[in-house]
């Protein structure tokens, strides 16, 4: 080969190589540009901030903007300025939801295939059942922090206790966190789990040895998030703030001056309040008129069968719950006011959700049910006090029980822990840049907590890669809401898209209006049931016999869900013996025979008739 030929070939190589390199560079540049270029969502030349607020065990209908009677002016205003969604789904329990909330993928992949505390023997050690947010996923905080965001967390973590599992290790540069699932809201810190008698707290990744004497969870979590934002705002970087309250999770605790804020507000009883809520929900358009609300659970008496005194005592618990919700609303107002003061409110995407359905289980009984156990000893030492007037104060234990949980979840069936609508529906309010349709209620979108990660990342212009710091990570299963929020579509999901749940062996699939669920007795049949949620959000009418083909289709999707996410049905479940732990069925009918009319009698008269004289009430 002659020199000229060589030179010619070299020039050709060079040209080709240059062209290739140029193409590669341009391509990479384009990819990079696509990855990093934020949408035109925030203020000019600014990427949006994110304030993700999570309430703990808040019911679907508790907020005023969702039909509740609880005074929540701040969140109601947020709903008026933003958009409410009616069909937003979470998991039936908290850590499971949180794993999906932060990873954007299914809990069986993210490490919370089951709650750590309740993992079945055959699930232990299996991928997806680590009981912590595992390394198969990356957290939205890590991605945002790597891409120029300040990442702050204040509140409940419940996704791991070890140093490499805590918020600071999973992308939050600043944090003030309680690492466990629930316990005292005061400085005494007792945890409901006897294995960890005192709730562990961390601040910026370091253990917190002592809480301030005047510590009250909701207030101090708010203080901390404000502190973090304030201390970090000097450099002009946007922030992702994860404000994850432990309210209104039991034990129901309140500062003294809030204890009687709702005094006697709930003496009417759960039936009356539930009816009023449903009426308001229909009026404001959260649910359709004429919907089939779930029946009162079979073991709960109608409240009109209870004497006024019993209703006062039962109502006291709901009073405390309502107080906790309003207190949280009030504290959220502090955050909004601060953001307005520093000029960041309009550039902040605010997302408000609950982590699961309202709590109707008896958590204390679950912990302390076995006399002679450490759980019992722990309860004896720390949360035995439940005297009526003491409830809500430090050192007491109260939850509001299944009847009020049903009120919080009207019109849905059952409550936290179950994959019924009552365990998995949550309020969702979004406001901020990129969110159109202020004051609207979106009833067409079927949304899932996994969607929040891709939504936030897209708004921030951050790409979710298949690897993170050299390790392979699971892809996001959620769907971005950006187009929906912009008003381009009604829902990120088509009629073919579907969602799946499995927890404690209960399982469900929703596709469009249809849902199948498999629940343990007594709430389910331990077989698949089919419901049409449009007409029957209360899941009262099993349509299996009428639409066998639809049922088969959805059961096939369940098989797909199980395979896709590595679901392992546990050899035991906390709900296997649910029936034994519940009272016998009440025998009273609400209105039969109709001519008896006892409900129409004024209580005073009724009691006087019974007792023969005053003093018998």
């Amino acid at each position: 080969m002659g020199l000229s030929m060589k030179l010619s070939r070299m020039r050709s190589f060079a040209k080709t190589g240059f062209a290739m390199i140029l193409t590669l560079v341009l391509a990479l540049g384009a990819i990079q540009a696509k990855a990093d270029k934020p949408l035109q969502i925030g203020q000019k030349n600014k990427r949006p901030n994110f304030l993700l607020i999570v309430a703990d065990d808040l019911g679907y209908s508790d907020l005023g903007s969702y039909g509740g009677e609880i005074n929540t002016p701040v969140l109601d205003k947020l709903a008026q300025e933003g958009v409410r969604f009616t069909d937003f789904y979470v998991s039936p329990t908290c850590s499971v939801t949180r794993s999906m909330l932060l990873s954007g993928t299914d809990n069986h992949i993210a490490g919370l295939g089951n709650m750590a505390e309740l993992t079945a023997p055959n699930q232990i050690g299996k991928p997806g059942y680590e009981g912590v947010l595992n390394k198969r996923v990356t957290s939205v905080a890590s991605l945002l922090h790597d891409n120029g965001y300040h990442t702050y967390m204040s509140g409940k973590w419940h996704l791991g206790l070890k140093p490499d599992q805590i918020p600071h290790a999973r992308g939050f540069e600043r944090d003030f966190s309680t690492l466990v699932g629930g316990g005292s809201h005061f400085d005494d810190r007792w945890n409901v789990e006897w294995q960890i008698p005192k709730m562990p707290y961390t601040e910026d990744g370091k253990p917190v040895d002592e809480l301030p004497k005047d510590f009250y969870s909701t207030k101090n979590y708010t203080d901390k998030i404000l502190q973090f934002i304030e201390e970090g705002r000097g450099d002009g970087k946007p922030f992702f703030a994860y404000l994850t309250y432990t309210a209104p999770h039991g034990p129901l605790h309140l500062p003294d001056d809030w204890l009687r804020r709702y005094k006697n507000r709930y003496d009417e009883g759960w039936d009356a309040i539930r009816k009023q809520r449903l009426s308001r929900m229909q009026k404001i358009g959260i649910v359709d008129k004429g919907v089939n609300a779930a029946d009162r659970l079979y073991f709960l008496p109608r409240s009109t069968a209870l004497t006024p005194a019993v209703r006062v005592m039962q109502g006291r618990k709901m009073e405390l719950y309502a107080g906790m919700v309003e207190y949280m609303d009030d504290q959220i107002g502090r955050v909004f006011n601060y953001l307005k003061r520093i000029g960041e409110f309009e550039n902040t995407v605010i997302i408000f959700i609950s982590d699961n359905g309202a709590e109707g289980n008896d958590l204390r009984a679950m912990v302390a049910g076995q006399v002679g156990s450490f759980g019992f000893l722990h309860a004896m030492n720390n949360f035995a006090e439940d005297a009526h007037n003491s409830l809500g104060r430090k050192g007491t234990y109260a939850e509001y029980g299944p009847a009020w949980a049903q009120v919080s979840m009207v019109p849905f069936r059952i409550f936290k822990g179950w994959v019924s609508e009552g365990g998995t529906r949550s309020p969702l309010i979004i406001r901020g840049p990129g969110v159109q349709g202020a004051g609207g209620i979106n009833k067409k979108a079927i949304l899932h907590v996994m969607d929040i990660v891709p939504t936030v990342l897209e708004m921030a212009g951050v790409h979710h890669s298949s690897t993170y710091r050299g390790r392979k990570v699971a892809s996001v299963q959620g769907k971005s809401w950006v187009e929906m929020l912009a008003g381009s579509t009604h829902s990120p999901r088509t009629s073919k898209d579907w969602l799946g749940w499995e927890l404690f062996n209960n399982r469900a699939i929703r596709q469009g209006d249809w849902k199948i669920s498999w629940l343990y007795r007594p709430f389910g049949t331990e077989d698949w049931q089919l419901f049409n949620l449009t007409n029957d959000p209360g899941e009262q009418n099993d349509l299996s016999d009428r639409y066998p083909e639809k049922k088969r289709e959805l059961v096939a999707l369940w098989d797909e869900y199980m395979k896709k996410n590595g679901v392992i049905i546990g050899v035991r479940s906390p709900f296997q013996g649910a029936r034994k732990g519940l009272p016998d069925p009440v025998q009273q009918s609400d209105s039969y025979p109709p001519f008896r009319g006892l409900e129409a009698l004024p209580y005073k008269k009724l009691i006087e008739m019974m007792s023969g004289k005053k003093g018998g009430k």
Partner: protein
Amino acid sequence: MNPRQTFMDVLARMTLAAIFVSLSSPAVAVDDGARAYWKARDGAHVVSAQYLFLDMQASDSEMFDPSHFILPNSETEANLFLGSYAYHFTLFDRRPSVIAFNLLGGSADVDIDTNVVQSQFLPPGVARGASFSQSASGWGDPTVQLDVNLFGTPPLISTVDLVNYEPTWTVDAAIMLALPVGEYDSDRLVNIGQNRLYGRFALPMKFHFGPFDAGHMTSIELTPSVWIFGENDDFLGQRLENDPLWQAEAHVTHDFTRSFYGSLDLLYRRGFESEINGVSVGDELDVGNVGLTLNFQVTDNFVMRAGYSSNVIGDDNLDNSVFRIQFVYGWHRLMENLKKLRGQKH
């Protein structure tokens, strides 16, 4: 939620009423007692039996024995029994009230130094300089007291009223009247009865702290009162008159457990200056006692209480101490019926 259990629990709160049950003990020599003006449920009955041991020594000051005689320069020992019955009701369907009947009885022994005692106090036939002792026993003057809440306590007629009851400030008015039918011998220096009408008007006040649940209750109580005495026209053949006796009684009470509370007690008395046949004798009374009371709820119905107090303020020349033990039994129709439903023994 087990509604049956809840119903039982609510009814069981009526037993809490028994904890509140206490009885004021209107007798001049002792205080009413801690938590004496707490209200029980409308329709509650309470009986109480109380034993009091009084030991009083006066040098040159005035003091009074159980029959309220002025006995300067004396030493008195008394063993008294106070029986009481109280009924809690609602006056005009608005004011929680208690009507109580008290009957005092027992014995008193008095030693007088006749060298220094005023002549008016020497019984007939007793010469100055001689040693002199006298004893008396029998019934005292029965008293009836009506206590009406003026502020802070709603009617406690129904269970729901009790469940909603969370007092902070409460103010009562109480009026007591003694009927002079007790043992009295005009020739004796020492008597258990007084031979005169007397009574008391009181304004019991209290402030509650913390949750109003057994095991958590704390209170500060103050009862200012004034005793008014009629004229005894046959005191050793003379006419005895006394100025009003001003009294302030205070307690700080605190629950240690659900069935056990303690009280720090203060009783201060002043006034009661005497005139015999229109002539003033001796000084006015000025004495304050501090004491401690322990109260133990034995059963839903039954309470035991013991207390001791001694003078620590006021006239240095007057020593007195009071020990008492009290048994209180309260009942309410519904509380008893609840036990039937629960299959409990009475």
